[in-house]
C-alpha cells in the first residue's frame, strides 16, 4: 500500500507540472483581456505598485503586469515552436540516418558541423542580416537545436533496428517504409518527447540569457526582455525595485522550466532504460 502511495506521489508531480503549464498557456492566450493596459502604453516611469499598476511601471512607464502577461505569449511561443521544429526535424532525420547507413554518415557530418557553430557570431550575424522579430529568433534556436535531436533519435534507431522484432517483421516481407513508420517511429516518440521538453526548457532559459546580454531582440517583448531592462536599470542593486520588476519575470521563467521538468518526469521514467546521456 505504501508503495502505491509513493508511486502516486511521483505521478502527482507530473500532474502539477502539466497544470502549471496549462495555467501559463491560458494566461498567455488571454493576455489581451487580462492585461490592465496595453504594454506599449507609456505612463509615468518607475511608479510603485498602485491601483492602476499592480506591479508598478518600468523605466519608460509601461505597466509591468501587462508586460508580464504578454511576455508569456512570446516566451512560450518561442520555446514551444523552436522545440517543436527541432524535435520534428530530429525525428525525421534521425529515423532516416539511423536506418540507412550512407545517408546516416552524411547527415552526421552535417550535424558535427552545426554543433560546432559558435552561438554568438551566429546570433550577431543573424541580427545583422535578417529582419528583427520572432521568426529570426526561432530560426536561431532551431539551427542550434536540430543536431542534438537528430543525434539522439539516430542513436535510438541504431539500437532498435537490430532488435529481433524488426528482423521478424522484415522476414515477413515488410517494406522499409512500413518498418520505419509502423515500428521504429513509435519507439522513438518517447525519446523525442523527452528531447522536446528539454529543448523547450533550454530555449526559454537561453532566450532570457541572450536578452540579458543584450543580444536578444529588444523588439520581441519576452520575459527575457523585461529582465534585460530591469537589470540595466541603474539602481537595480541599490534599491528595492528588483522585487516588483525583476522577480515576476524571473519567477515565471523558473516556474515554466520547473513545470516542464515535472511533466518530463513521467516521460523520463518511461523512456529511462533507453535514454543515454
Amino acid at each position, binding site marked *: 500500500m505504501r*508503495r502505491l*502511495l*509513493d*508511486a502516486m*506521489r*511521483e505521478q502527482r*508531480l507530473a500532474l502539477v507540472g502539466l497544470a502549471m503549464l496549462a495555467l501559463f498557456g491560458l494566461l498567455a492566450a488571454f493576455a489581451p483581456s487580462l492585461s490592465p493596459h496595453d504594454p506599449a502604453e507609456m505612463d509615468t516611469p518607475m511608479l510603485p505598485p498602485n491601483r492602476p499598476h499592480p506591479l508598478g511601471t518600468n523605466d519608460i512607464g509601461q505597466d509591468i503586469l501587462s508586460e508580464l502577461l504578454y511576455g508569456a505569449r512570446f516566451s512560450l511561443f518561442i520555446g514551444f515552436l523552436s522545440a517543436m521544429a527541432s524535435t520534428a526535424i530530429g525525428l525525421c532525420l534521425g529515423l532516416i540516418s539511423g536506418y540507412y547507413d550512407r545517408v546516416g554518415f552524411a547527415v552526421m*557530418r552535417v550535424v*558535427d*558541423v552545426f554543433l*560546432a*557553430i*559558435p552561438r*554568438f*557570431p*551566429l546570433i*550577431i*550575424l543573424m541580427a*545583422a542580416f535578417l529582419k528583427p522579430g520572432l521568426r529570426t529568433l526561432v530560426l536561431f534556436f532551431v539551427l542550434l537545436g536540430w543536431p542534438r535531436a537528430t543525434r539522439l533519435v539516430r542513436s535510438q534507431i541504431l539500437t532498435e533496428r537490430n532488435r529481433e522484432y524488426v528482423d521478424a517483421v522484415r522476414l515477413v516481407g515488410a517494406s522499409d517504409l512500413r518498418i520505419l513508420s509502423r515500428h521504429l517511429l513509435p519507439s522513438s516518440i518517447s525519446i523525442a518527447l523527452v528531447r522536446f521538453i528539454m529543448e523547450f*526548457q533550454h530555449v526559454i*532559459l537561453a532566450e*532570457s*540569457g541572450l536578452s*540579458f*546580454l543584450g543580444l536578444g531582440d529588444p523588439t520581441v517583448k519576452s520575459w527575457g526582455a523585461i*529582465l534585460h531592462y530591469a*537589470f540595466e536599470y541603474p539602481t*537595480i*542593486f*541599490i534599491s528595492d525595485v*528588483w522585487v516588483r520588476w*525583476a522577480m515576476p519575470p*524571473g519567477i515565471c*521563467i*523558473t*516556474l515554466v*522550466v*520547473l513545470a516542464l*521538468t*515535472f511533466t518530463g*518526469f513521467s516521460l*523520463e521514467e518511461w523512456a*529511462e*532504460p533507453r535514454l543515454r*546521456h
Partner: protein
Amino acid sequence: MIDMRVAQYLLTMFIVLSLNFFLPRMMPGDPLSYLTGDPTADMPVAISEEVREKLLAYYGLDEPLARQYTDYLINLAHGNLGWSIYYKAPVSSVLLGRLRWTLLLMGTATLGYVALGILLGALSAWRRGTRTDIGLLVSVFSLGSWPPFFLAMLLIILFSVKLGAFPIGGAKSPTGSNAAGLKLAAEVAYHLFLPSLALVLTHLSGVYFLMRNSMLGVLGEDYIRTARAKGLRKRDILLRHALPNALLPIVTMIAMHLGFLIMGTMFVEVVFAYPGTGTLIYQACTTRDYPLLQGTFLLIMAFVMMFNLAADLLYSRLDPRVRRA
C-alpha cells in the same frame, strides 16, 4: 576501423577550425570599428582612410582572405595563436591569464555540486516516493530552474548588499595583490564563495537527478537483491555495491559539463565581474577580435576533446565489465 574514426575526427576538427575562421569574418564591421569608432567613448578617435589602411596592414587584415586563412592554419600548426587586436597582447597570454580563474571557479563548483548531487541523489533514490524524495525533487529542481544570471544577482543583493557578508565581485580585493600564501588563498576563497555557490545551485539538479535514476536502476538489479537476501546492512549495500555502479553515468555528465566550462561559467562571471574565460567569446565577438576569437574557439575544442577522452578513460577504469572486455 580505427582509421575511419581518426579520419572522421580530423575532418571534423578541420571543419570546425575553418568555421571558426570564416564565421567571425562574416559579421559586418571589423576590429578597427571597435578600436576607433565606438560612439559611447568619451573621446572620439577618428582616423583617416589612410591611417585605417596602415592599421589594417599592420594587423595583416588587408591581405586576401585565402592568404589570411592559410596563414592562420600554418600559425596554428606551429602553436602560434597570434596577437589580440583588442587586448594588444598575445592571445595565449590573454587566454591563460583568464583560464586559471575559470578553472578555479569551475573546479570548486564541480566539487560542490557533484558531492552534494551524489549525496542527495542517493538519498532520494533510497527513499523513493517518500516526502523526503519529493521534497528534494521539488527544491533541487526549483533551484536549477532559475536563469543562472538571475540567481547570481539575487545572491549579490542578498549577501553583499543587504548582509554585507561577501564582496560584490572580482577574484580578489583590489588592494590585496601584495598578499601571499595563506592570506592570498583566504582572499581568493572569500571572493570565490558566491560565484561558486551560484554555479553549484544551478548545476545541482543534473547530477542529483542522474544519481537518483542511476541508483534506482542499480537498486533494482539482481545483485542488490542478492545482497539484501544475504542480510547485509543497508549502509553497506548502499556504499559498497550500489554507489560505485550508479556513479558511472555521472562521470560522463561531469565530463561534458567540464568540457564546456570555458563558456559554462559565462553568466556567473559577467554578474560577478569574475575574470574568467566565460566572457571572452562574447567580448571577442563584439570587438571583432578575430585572433582572440579563433584562439578561444580552439581552446573550447581542446577542452571538449580532452574531457571526452578523460571520460572514456575513466569509464573504462571504473566499470569492471568494460575492463574485462
